[in-house]
């Protein structure tokens, strides 16, 4: 018994270590190395293993995701259980362990979430009354997402929020950009008609009007979340919504650039025309959204949004360097700002995935592919 080994101080004599009656390979017994701080999660049944057969399994606590790595050993590790041969002076070995599983904290694998949500984007053309089983293709409930996405619950929710997903009839959906644009336009149109202040939109009013225009309440609320910020209502208590100038203007810039690349002057003119009155633009708003090219004496602008790029560092940098061989630090930063690798800082990321050159001591550093 294990106690015999662990409490040897209390024994004056030696004990015998033997092969247990049931000694064997016992491939179903696995050793998992775990940090003490994760023990409460284990003891309270808050830990799960997630992944499909073709994926590498991950271990999830409520808020963190860990990769599982098997580390083998050439040592002989004799495993002695607390049960087994009853004699106090005998410790029996049930198995020789070939190694242990170790945990390495990793970023949640949200690319799959993005892919699943794209399968059936909401665009207003759905009649829920008529929806039957056959219409559920590409539609996922929370439990369906947990089954398919290798992320902890907290990280999964955070991912849904980051992708501007909304729960409609129990299914998590992302909304087609053009449709969302239409909803925003309706909101802006109505605010002019009703004299609403864009700095103090009342949720119930906005949702009520948009609903009467035929939009789902969830979509109306999503519009406020995507393009506004909740602020405290100093006058009436509670909160109101203040439209976020940057997010609204970026939306209109994207819709202008949907037509393709264009000359800078042309873009600025069209952009100015589209933005709501009272809002002003600045070029800095477009960082991480557009790329500039000098063709001859003219500057051309086109859409290149970080939101359309891969989420994992290796793929992200590959996509960036496919677009442009060399990047200056200032241009690159907005396109890698959102990357998150546990244990790796921003500098560490650059070190790992780029080659840094600096033509002269006081020149700007240039980053290119490794």
């Amino acid at each position, binding site marked *: 018994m294990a106690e015999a080994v662990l409490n040897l101080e209390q024994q004056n004599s*030696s*004990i015998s270590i033997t092969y247990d009656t049931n000694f064997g390979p016992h491939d179903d017994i696995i050793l998992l190395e775990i940090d003490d701080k994760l023990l409460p999660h*284990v003891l309270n049944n808050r830990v799960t293993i997630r992944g499909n057969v073709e994926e590498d399994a991950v271990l999830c606590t409520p808020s963190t995701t860990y990769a599982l790595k098997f580390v083998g050993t050439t040592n002989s590790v004799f495993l002695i259980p607390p049960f087994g041969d009853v004699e106090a002076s005998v410790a029996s*070995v049930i198995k020789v*362990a070939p190694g242990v599983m170790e945990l390495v904290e990793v970023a949640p694998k949200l690319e799959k979430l993005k892919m699943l949500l794209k399968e059936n984007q909401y665009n207003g053309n759905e009649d829920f009354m008529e929806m039957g089983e056959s219409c559920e293709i590409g539609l996922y409930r929370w439990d369906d997402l947990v089954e398919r996405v290798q992320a902890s619950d907290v990280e999964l929710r955070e991912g849904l929020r980051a992708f501007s997903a909304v729960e409609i009839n129990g299914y998590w959906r992302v909304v087609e950009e053009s449709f969302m644009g239409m909803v925003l336009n309706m909101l802006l149109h109505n605010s002019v008609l009703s004299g609403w202040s864009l700095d103090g939109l009342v949720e119930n009013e906005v949702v009520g009007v948009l609903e009467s225009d035929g939009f789902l309440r969830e979509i109306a609320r999503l519009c406020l979340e995507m393009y506004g910020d909740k602020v405290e209502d100093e006058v009436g208590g509670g909160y109101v919504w203040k439209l976020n100038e940057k997010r609204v203007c970026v939306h209109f810039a994207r819709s202008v650039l949907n037509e393709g690349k264009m000359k800078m002057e042309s873009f600025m003119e069209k952009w100015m025309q589209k933005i709501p009155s009272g809002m002003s633009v600045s070029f800095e708003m477009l960082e991480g959204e557009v790329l500039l090219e000098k063709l001859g004496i003219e500057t051309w602008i086109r859409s290149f949004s970080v939101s359309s790029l891969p989420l994992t560092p290796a793929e992200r940098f590959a996509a960036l360097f496919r677009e442009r061989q060399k990047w200056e630090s200032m241009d690159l930063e907005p396109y890698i700002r959102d990357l998150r690798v546990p244990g790796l800082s921003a500098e560490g990321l650059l070190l790992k995935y780029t080659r840094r050159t600096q033509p002269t001591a006081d020149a700007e550093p240039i980053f290119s592919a490794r």
Partner: protein
Amino acid sequence: MEIKLKCGCGEEGCAEWAIVKMQGAVEVQPSFQDRLQNLEIGRLCLSSFQGNYTFTVGYHDLSGSRMSLKKPLLVLKKNKDGDPSKLDEPTSSRVELEVIGIIRHRILFKTRPKALISRVQSPVKGKVGQTSSTVH
């Protein structure tokens, strides 16, 4: 697919297992290969002097010490539930994972084994002084 890590250990924590770790491998004599069960591997004793452990395997002495693991090890058991009566359920061959123990300490032997063969005798003294236990 999601597999819950079940832990029925409760408030007192999980049953504690022990680990004895040594370098290399223990070889069982060919004649005993098929009936390892209940065979003695060796004797473990604790010296009261320095908290030093000695593990005697065959004619080798290993010297080691007990250490607390920096990170505890959980002992998990994988159960494959291939219940034929549940074949119509989509997850009929469900894998379950259960915590059946925890390891916080190990007895580690990392020195080279010392052979318990007596000192080389000069031809004059013959076989006097050789250890009496059989050497294989």
